[in-house]
């Protein structure tokens, strides 16, 4: 009896055409989408690959909750989100959000809401592998200051080799 989840997690390449097709709706005058991709550098370091670790059950339940919030808050028709897990290469799509609405105002606003909440609320962790051979889990120093999602300088790396002294409020880095 449970409704099919609007949030999905997948270990293979995101099939965006199929994901998008699920949103087809003759009432839709606008479709807004966002793709988050693996880029070649983060915080000035050259990235060569990425690993995502995910707790799938809570990703899906919490992702569905976020989309339900968007459906309640904005005048949209439907929305979907899908996130990769596992190993990704440069340029691959890590997360996709698609939203249909009668008008574009709501489509843009809901798309933005969903990606911001997904990035801050879902149990998804990103480990970056650098060209120099180092690697590290990417944390969000701004999580307590959730008011500025995506602000430059938001992302920080908690290196694996750092010791007990990192146990301070805020974040200390191996860099």
């Amino acid at each position, binding site marked *: 009896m449970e409704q099919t989840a609007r949030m999905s997690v997948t270990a293979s390449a995101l099939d965006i055409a199929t994901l998008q097709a699920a949103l087809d709706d003759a009432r839709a005058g606008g479709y807004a989408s966002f793709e988050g991709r693996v880029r070649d550098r983060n915080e000035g370091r050259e990235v060569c690959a990425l690993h995502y670790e995910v707790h799938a059950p809570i990703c899906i339940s919490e992702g569905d909750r976020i989309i339900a919030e968007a459906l309640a808050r904005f005048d949209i028709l439907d929305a979907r989100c899908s996130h990769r897990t596992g190993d990704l290469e440069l340029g691959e799509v890590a997360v996709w959000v698609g939203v249909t609405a009668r008008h574009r105002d709501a489509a843009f606003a809901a798309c933005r809401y969903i990606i911001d909440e997904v990035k801050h*609320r879902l149990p998804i*962790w990103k480990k970056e592998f650098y060209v120099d051979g180092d690697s590290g889990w990417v*944390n969000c120093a701004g999580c307590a200051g959730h008011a500025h999602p995506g602000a430059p300088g938001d992302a920080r790396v908690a290196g694996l080799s750092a010791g007990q002294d990192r146990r301070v409020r805020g974040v200390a880095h191996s860099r």
Partner: protein
Amino acid sequence: MSAAVKAVTAEYFAVFREQAGTDRETVETAAETPAALYQELAARHGFAEHAERCKVAVNDTLSDWHSPLAEGDRVLFFPPVAGG
């Protein structure tokens, strides 16, 4: 504080998993909340994150750090997410 000792399962993700050297372990604890349990385990494994930057789930449901813990609970410790 003569709380009964109970057995719970702690599960670790990402940097916690790497620092603990395991993805799960059974723990005998007097901790009455996930917050108290986290303090114990952070001291044991050297977790560097304050609990307020992390999240916790009990039996696969996101939970309050100050909810009561019961015998046999599975307690999932989530380090800060990638965010940006």
